[in-house]
């Protein structure tokens, strides 16, 4: 996983994720260039999004670990109709559902590529895009 977070936070009009008590560790790790997941100690399921209870079994204890940082594109769209002026400046942009090697499915933009190069089933690596004083997991074709 590469780390692209600059030391000074750039201003942004793009929406920042609002961390909460259950996700603060995830976003702290993201700022350090790590994709943090949690494996349930009761049933071994990998929980995402980060929350105190396991969606699979309801267990409330888990072990955090850093994901390998690879995944596969399950599906995607080339989005032309942006929800805000800030996104309009990026349009058209790719939004994809990425299945991580560890199991969880995340939504990410596929960045640094031509939209027509993206296909279902492609392997991606997770990179981090600086946004405000945070960092967002994003996908890059490998």
């Amino acid at each position, binding site marked *: 996983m590469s780390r692209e977070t600059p030391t000074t936070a750039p201003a942004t009009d793009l929406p920042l994720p609002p961390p909460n008590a259950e996700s603060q560790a995830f976003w702290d790790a993201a700022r350090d260039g790590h994709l943090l997941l949690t494996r349930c100690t009761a049933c071994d399921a990998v929980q995402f999004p980060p929350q105190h209870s396991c969606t699979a079994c309801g267990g409330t204890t888990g072990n955090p670990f850093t994901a390998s940082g690879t995944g596969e594109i399950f599906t*995607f769209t080339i*989005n*032309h109709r*942006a*929800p805000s002026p800030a996104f309009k400046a990026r349009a058209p942009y790719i939004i994809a559902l990425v299945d991580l090697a560890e199991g969880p499915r995340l939504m990410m933009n596929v960045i640094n590529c031509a939209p027509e190069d993206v296909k279902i089933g492609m392997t991606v690596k997770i990179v981090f895009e600086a946004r405000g004083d945070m960092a967002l997991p994003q996908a890059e074709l490998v």
Partner: protein
Amino acid sequence: MTSSKAAITGVANTRCGRLEGSTCLGLHAEVARGAVADAGLELGDVDGLICAYSFTEPHPMLASVVAEYLGIQPAYSACVSAGGASGALQVMTAKSLVESGMCRHVLCLTGDTRMSGMAPGAAVAALARFGHGQFEVPYGITIPAAYGMVAQRYMHDTGLTLSDMAHIAVTTRNHARRHPDAQMRKPLSHAEVMASRPIAEPLRLFDCALISDGAAGILVSAAPTGNGAEVRIVGAGQKNTHEHLIAAPRDLQSFGCKFSARDAFAEAGMTTADIDVAEIYDSFTITLAIELESIGFFPKGSVGEAVSDGALDLGGTLPCNTHGGLLSFGHSGAAGGAFHVVEAVRQLRGQADSRQVANASRAFVHGDGGVLSAHVSLILERLS
């Protein structure tokens, strides 16, 4: 034959489109009076009120606000909020309220002024907030983009094509052209759909629902009021599998419609073969394609060919969205899905004028909220 099932005794809708000078509450009142009058009753007869939600009147107790505006004090009032499934879910909830004996006449109201009451683009921006705040919204998600991802995968897995989806848009427009209240009544060709600008690829402009002002009212009663044909709600079912796309069924195919429809058909003692007319949620062409196949009206992978052969036309094997659906009649928030109920009742009563399906006695209605998240199926039958 006497039925213990709830009846739909009154329906009303406003025109769809830009209704200058209208307000959200004013539209609610218009269809409230219209639905009650359609049943031959007065507002004072209503002892239950169910509303949904509104972008332009974002009060969390909308049912209380509407009752106050109407000047009524029903014994029961509540909001039912399940996005596009709200209209069908209101009817399902009202059904149980009257069948349990708690209420006699439950008025289900939906409406919004998303066109004249909001700045351009504001409805799209508000809808984007349906996404997960931390794990979807920062990526620029919109409702069309979410359905675009669903469409991309469904086309990959089943062979559905852009041309197939264009046929759905055209068929639906042809129906809307026969409805005086529809927002879009101009002819629409297959070539125009194919050439329309991309919104969230693979979805194009004419694959997407409209944004409209409009409202719908549906009166659910314990027994027919003697005003018109007897229409009973003989089956209802609901299934929600997720809210956000990241948590949807992993195959993006096993959506709740399959299960809500199964339960509705089981209650009615019917199968898909018994249905004369279907009014099915069509926020996008892909939405209708997936629901038609998942519910079992067409085998998986076959809906495209069926639609291009005219299966959804008035004289087809399954006349569908005969009012023009969300794609061409109108989509004013929760009322969007309620229009499907209104149209089903008109078809069963034989009041659909030039878009009437001959001898329609059994209708299937389906609502879907979120990103194929919340599903409600209804089966309506004319008993006299």
